[in-house]
């Protein structure tokens, strides 16, 4: 009874929370994928779905883990005990404390994305192996590092902007939206027939991470030009980083 009462306290928000996830899924898999002529059970010829998934899932995992690994501890540190005050007393400027949080979760996100590689490599139907090749290792590393920095910067921003009580639900939704519309399950170029979706996805940072990795790992699949994703990742990280560190400093100093 008590649990029902707690649940029923916020019915509209609950409905949105419950409904939005399936909506995003059906939108991605029942509207976008058939609309671009791909998807599970669609084309079995080249590119195999696993070839599309390899960079997509790497980017998705990188984004998810980078964000979660910074927001989780931060919510606790900014919470009632304000443990952040203790860290803030270290003899460092406060922006440096924020930067530490960004870099450490970026490292974690980067490592998590590497875990995806053997999984996608090994788990597939006969003959549906991913086909990947790396022509430019330094560029791949730069892309991975920039993606991880952008994702964890975003995580720190979300952690300082979103109220802790609304955090779980909101973060879940944001991540679902980002993943479904983040070119994880389909390359961006394939969205051509759905012009408005293609434009809409440009607001999603995950698109540039997926496409950047796609360009580096599976260049045979249509992908965004290098200048486009590199510019987006670099300026995005710089601009968001500036904003986030300012916001973080204000949150820690009252």
């Amino acid at each position, binding site marked *: 009874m008590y649990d029902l009462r707690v649940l029923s306290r916020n019915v509209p928000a609950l409905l949105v929370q419950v409904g939005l996830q399936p909506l995003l899924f059906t939108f991605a898999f029942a509207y976008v994928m058939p609309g671009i002529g791909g998807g599970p059970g669609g084309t079995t010829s080249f590119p195999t779905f696993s070839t599309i998934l390899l960079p997509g899932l790497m980017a998705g995992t990188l984004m998810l883990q980078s964000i979660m690994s910074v927001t989780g501890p931060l919510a606790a540190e900014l919470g009632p*005990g*304000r*443990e952040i*005050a*203790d860290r*803030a*007393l*270290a*003899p*460092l*400027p*406060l922006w440096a404390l924020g930067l530490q949080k960004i870099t450490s979760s970026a490292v974690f996100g980067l490592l998590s994305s590497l875990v995806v590689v053997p999984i996608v490599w090994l788990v597939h139907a006969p003959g549906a192996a991913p086909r990947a090749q790396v022509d430019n290792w330094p560029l791949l590393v730069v892309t991975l590092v920039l993606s991880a920095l952008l994702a964890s910067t975003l995580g720190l921003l979300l952690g300082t902007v979103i109220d802790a009580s609304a955090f779980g639900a909101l973060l879940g939704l944001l991540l679902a939206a980002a993943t479904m519309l983040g070119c994880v399950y389909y390359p961006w170029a394939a969205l051509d027939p759905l012009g408005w979706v293609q434009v809409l996805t440009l607001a999603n940072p995950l698109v540039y991470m997926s496409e950047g990795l796609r360009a580096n790992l599976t260049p045979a699949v249509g992908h965004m030009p290098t200048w486009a994703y590199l510019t987006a990742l670099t300026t995005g990280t710089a601009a968001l980083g500036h904003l986030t560190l300012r916001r973080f400093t204000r949150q*820690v*100093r*009252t």
Partner: protein
Amino acid sequence: METAPARPRQPVTPAGTATAIRTEGLRKVYRRGQDTLVALEGLDLTVAQGEFFGLLGTNGAGKSTTIGMLTTLVTPTAGRAWVSGHEVGADPVGVKSRIGVVPQANTLDRALTVLDNLAFRGRYFGMSAPAARRRALELLERLGLAGTAGAKAHQLSGGQARRVMIGRALMHVPEVLFLDEPTAGVDPRAREDLWQLIGDVHAAGQTVVLTTHHLDEAEALCRRLAVIDHGRLLACGTPESIKAAGGARSVITVRYDADSRAVEDAARRTPGGPHEIVVDGPTVQVRTTHPDGVLGHLVRAGGAAGLTVRDATTTPPSLRTAFLTLTGHDYPVSSTHLTLPTKRIVEVSQSAIT
């Protein structure tokens, strides 16, 4: 009515000592939407090196805000402050590297051992790993915590955790040690142990700034005190000088079984007067520098008016009575507040008699 005591604008540090802390017109206003809260109103303070200085006030008086600004975590709305010669706003890193802070909440890392909690702090402040470990072990020994070095922080009792936090704050040999309500939530026995410890740390030459809402703690530990109420500095000096500023008055409170207006005139004729008299409902309170015979007079006056005494207390001159005189309201010690148009008086419960 009471006269406001002269407020020392420029508290003087003992001659010939260097300054550890100085503030000039330090002010903090919190704004939340339309609401503004003045947490601290123009604070001028000076604390000398080696002093044991206390900020005394009730909850919400502005003590933690003051500590927050001195430790760089709260941005002043106006005014300036220097700690160990470094300005808080302009050089926060310079200040942070010279202070140790023991916050009110337990902020030990629960997953780490006691030793690692201390050693990590040393690493923050640039010590090598072996040096940090050596210093941590030496401090734990000194704090009587050598046996807990390997224990996880969440296994400690409240008093032990507080000792470890003090040890952690001392890791980098700070020039000023800040303690925010160091005995809050600690049992009486552990509280005395903590007083002993803090006293020893000060005796070893450490400058200590402590906030407390416990009058006994302020009196037992601090050589100099600032009394803060509603964001204002009301008095600053030794506990003795603050008692003197408060007029060193005793407070005699008598509660009758019915409205006490019947004895008001008689109360005003209490021998040894004139005294300050506050009458509220069944309660009469006399604040006086000549307390002898007052209680007897009030009891007799009640009898003459047909009233029976239900409760009677005498509080000798103390920081508490000084606080009452300085602020116009009593120090809340598990007491019932009676609201008067101009000021509040408090019925002193039997248990509060000292």
